[in-house]
């Protein structure tokens, strides 16, 4: 609905005002992210424009200072473990839940995805008390299990989404042609749900890689992750290395967003769903 010649002046005014408001809101949304990426290349440790010169020194510090490197390794180790665990658990559960007439499906689904609804600070406190009793406090295992709880619902949701509209006659046809269940799974089901699984795995990785509250509550300095190090860094004094770390995380989210979108399109193409 473009402003055309037969609209009244007030209407035209509103049209441009609306565009102006939208531009301002979109700027508000994107500006913080765009502003800090150039600042991470600043040659002096200040956070203002114009920048006197460009330098990679903060990235060098981020990738080579032991404090940050340990945090990065910890984050990657925890996130990879979480991804493997939650993708397995979540995919199995989604396969089960998607079988036709599964009893109490809605109730069970609500329970399984409840970890993303409960405020994370409550989860963190509850797990802190629980882990204190069972001796999982300040261990890698505890952190991995806690992050897996938060990440698995995403896998359940994405894989269930790929399975809606899943043509069950395909598996029946394969079984009718004599394939044992395991072959049916690996040759027919898995390739079809793979895009959903990979999206879910990426979500799981991202959840663990970004998570800070659980890392603060149930892990110690020995298991410090990247977000935890950033958090304590900001509380003291914000250093340019934190901005470099933030920029790396932003690039990571852009890469993830692109991959998930491409996978979603591929999945829809595979299942023959056309965008309307």
């Amino acid at each position, binding site marked *: *609905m473009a402003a055309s010649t037969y609209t009244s002046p007030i209407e035209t005014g509103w049209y441009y005002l609306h565009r102006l408001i939208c531009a301002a809101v979109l700027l508000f949304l994107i500006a913080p992210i765009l502003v800090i990426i150039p600042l991470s290349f600043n040659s002096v440790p200040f956070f203002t424009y114009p920048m006197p010169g460009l330098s990679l020194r903060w990235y060098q510090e981020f990738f080579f200072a032991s404090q940050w490197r340990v945090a990065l390794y910890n984050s990657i180790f925890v996130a990879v473990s979480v991804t493997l665990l939650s993708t397995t658990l979540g995919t199995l559960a989604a396969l089960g839940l998607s079988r036709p007439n599964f009893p109490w499906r809605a109730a069970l689904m609500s329970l399984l995805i409840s970890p993303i609804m409960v405020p994370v600070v409550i989860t963190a406190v509850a797990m802190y008390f629980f882990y204190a009793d069972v001796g999982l406090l300040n261990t890698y295992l505890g952190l991995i299990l806690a992050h897996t709880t938060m990440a698995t619902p995403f896998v359940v949701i994405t894989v269930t989404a790929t399975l809606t509209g899943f043509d069950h006659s395909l598996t029946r046809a394969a079984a009718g042609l004599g394939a044992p269940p395991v072959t049916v799974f690996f040759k027919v089901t898995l390739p079809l749900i793979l895009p959903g699984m990979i999206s879910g795995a990426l979500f799981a990785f991202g959840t663990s890689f970004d998570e800070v509250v659980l890392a603060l509550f149930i892990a110690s300095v020995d298991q410090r992750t990247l977000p935890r190090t950033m*958090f304590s860094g900001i509380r003291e004094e914000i250093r340019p290395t934190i901005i470099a770390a933030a920029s790396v995380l932003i690039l990571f989210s852009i890469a993830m967003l692109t991959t998930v979108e491409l996978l979603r399109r591929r999945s829809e193409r595979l299942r023959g769903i056309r965008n309307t």
Partner: protein
Amino acid sequence: MVTMAVQIAREPDGMPLRTKLTRVERRRKLRAFILVLPLLLFILIGFALPIGRMMFNAIHDDTLLTLMPRTTAALSAWDGKDLPDESTYAALAEDLKQAWAQRSMGAIAKRINYELPGLGSQITSSARKASTLSAGPYKPTLIEINPVWGRQDVWSLLKRGSLAYTPYYLLRSVDYQYGPSGQIVASPPETAIFQDMFLRTLAISIGVTALTLLLGFPVAYLLATLPAKYSNLLMIMVVLPFWTSLLVRTVAWVVLLQQHGVINEMLMALHMISQPAQLIFNRIGTMVAMTHIQLPFTLLPIYSVMKTIPPIHIRAARSLGAGPFYAFWKVYFPQTLPGIAAGCLLTFILCLGYYITPAMVGGPNDQMVGSFIAHYTNEELNWGMASALGAILLTATLLLYYVFNKLVGVDRIKMG
């Protein structure tokens, strides 16, 4: 004929077809359930059980019952009017001696200190002296050792300790507590902080929800009405922040808003202000950062509802003589209400549980219930209070999710 039919329905092995089908069906259901079982157990043990225990901790506290067994047993017959009799004091002396020997006095003192602040150290020191007592009469001796043992409120607290369940922490969370003789009274003003805290949590959440709606609605309308090639491009600007880590976005706001940050320096370069404005570590910073983080959550449900409204409706209204605003208000806007309700409710629910963002960009007067839960867990080590506040927040959240589910349906939560 009847026998014939039965014979036909029987398979060679003599089992009715119906039974066989039921059995197959049951086996199929069992197999599906076995697939779900690992995750179900994992969530039940690793998530539901801890949460349940936290809810339980909000009303359960058996510190006094287990650490002062004799005193609490002797007190169950006490009428609460005068000071207890000599035999209760003897039991107390015995409990104090034992607690001193087993080094459990700290836990008792801490528990008493929650309800009667400042008495903890006196209770501990009296236990040290009581541990040397060998014979009665205990009543005058204990009161002489420390006058706290002659106080009515201390004894009524111990009497309440003979039950393992206490509403104390929940009462305290809404600024009530026990008076000297065990009646429920309002907390004194200097410790009555929780009603304010809940009101602040509500105010910030409502404010942020309103702001996101105000900012999100026009953008959702634009995205829904633009041709796809433009709207997809603009959509990236909405979705990218949505996907960026919450911590990163909060960092960005710290950099932008701080004293010598980008915004202050820019405003000063433009001569709009002469000295840096305080934009961070106060309500402004909290509201700006939270609105930024929540905006996509409000915007996207509204957008997806707007996408389903046929543009013909507005054109029909216009051709029937409605003015542009009348047509929008009477025809278009009512159809967007489900999206507005879903988006606002989601944002409101998520706002209630905020902890990290207010901690990083807010001041002491912007801390919400989440920060208090964290404070009682990590710093005060008062797990009863943390659990009670957590239980209240969780109940509110789950109730609102129930409403959300009735309204929208959890199955429709989508990502991206």
